[in-house]
């Protein structure tokens, strides 16, 4: 019997769905506005930090899913495209907001890191 082999892909998937379920439970119990998969991600990160390593099956399931992550956005993307008539009047506002905010956050985060690195890890 090799079905129960340690570190299988299915066991990794079970860890992922199990943590998502725990996130769902936490969200409902504490009435949190945070999405349950994000809570699950946070709980799993805590477990990994405590373990100090990534179990083989979990690594296989996570890398497998994340390797095809972009595919999973397609249904939502299709809904957005079918709905584009609804945002036609706001398209310019959305485009300008996205451009301004992308460059602003790029600059702010990079400059903050440069400044803090100089304070925290000064080079002689």
């Amino acid at each position, binding site marked *: 019997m090799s079905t129960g082999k340690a570190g299988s892909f299915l066991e990794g*998937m079970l860890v992922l769905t199990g943590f998502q379920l725990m996130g769902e439970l936490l969200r409902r119990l504490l009435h949190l506005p945070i999405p349950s998969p994000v809570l699950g991600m946070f709980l799993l990160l805590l477990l990994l930090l405590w373990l100090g390593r990534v179990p083989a099956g979990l690594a296989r399931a996570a890398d497998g899913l*994340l390797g095809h992550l972009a595919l999973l956005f397609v249904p939502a993307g299709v809904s957005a495209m079918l709905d584009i008539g609804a945002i036609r009047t706001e398209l310019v506002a959305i485009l300008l*907001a996205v451009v301004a905010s992308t460059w602003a956050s790029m600059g702010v*985060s990079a400059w903050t*890191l440069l400044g803090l690195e100089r304070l925290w890890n000064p080079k002689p």
Partner: protein
Amino acid sequence: MTLSELASTVPFGLSLTVGAFVLGQRLQKRLGNSPLLQPVLFASLTIALFLWFSGIPGPAYRVGADLVHHLLGPATVALAVPLYRQLGRVRSSLLPVLVSVLAGAVTACGVAVGVAKLLGASSLTLLSIAPKSVSTPIAIGVSEAIGGDPGRAVLCVVFTGILGAVTGAGFFRLVGIRDARAIGIGLGVSAHGIGTSRALQLGETEGAFSGLAMGLTGLVTAVLLPVAVRLFG
């Protein structure tokens, strides 16, 4: 048997989704991995056009497509794995990284919502554009949680990623930033996964800092944004 009967079966939506995406991947490869041709964008556009021309209603397509959509949950949980791996690689800079991610994430939300509001966007759009700088699965979850529209959120997120990936290197040259860590942080905070794949092309340090920044930005935004909406919304 009519086309619309066949169209509301599971294998129809499933095949259409995977098929259009694979086609997009092949096209992108042929164009030298250009960040301009995103398979997600290509697939979304072709499928939407196909449905529109053939008169197949969106809900029929979703019967099969939802199978793909629901995998986003476990995939989001799986983001903990790369996040954990990157954390170990940048241990000495952890505090500066955390603070700059926080500053960048707040800037991204604030400027996006501020500019859109100034230009007269509706409140549904404001709630959908707010999580634009985080990985798509998180943005979908956050926009749903705060009452925005996940479809609009995906559009904003994908456009943000492409913009960051295409203009990032030029932006940093223009403002005179050459530090690999700072470039990685800037790309990861502002342009999530698409920016991180660009950072990986620039170098290993850029890639590691970008990957970490992307994960932390998602976490910070997912926790702070719903709270902020509840307080000020």
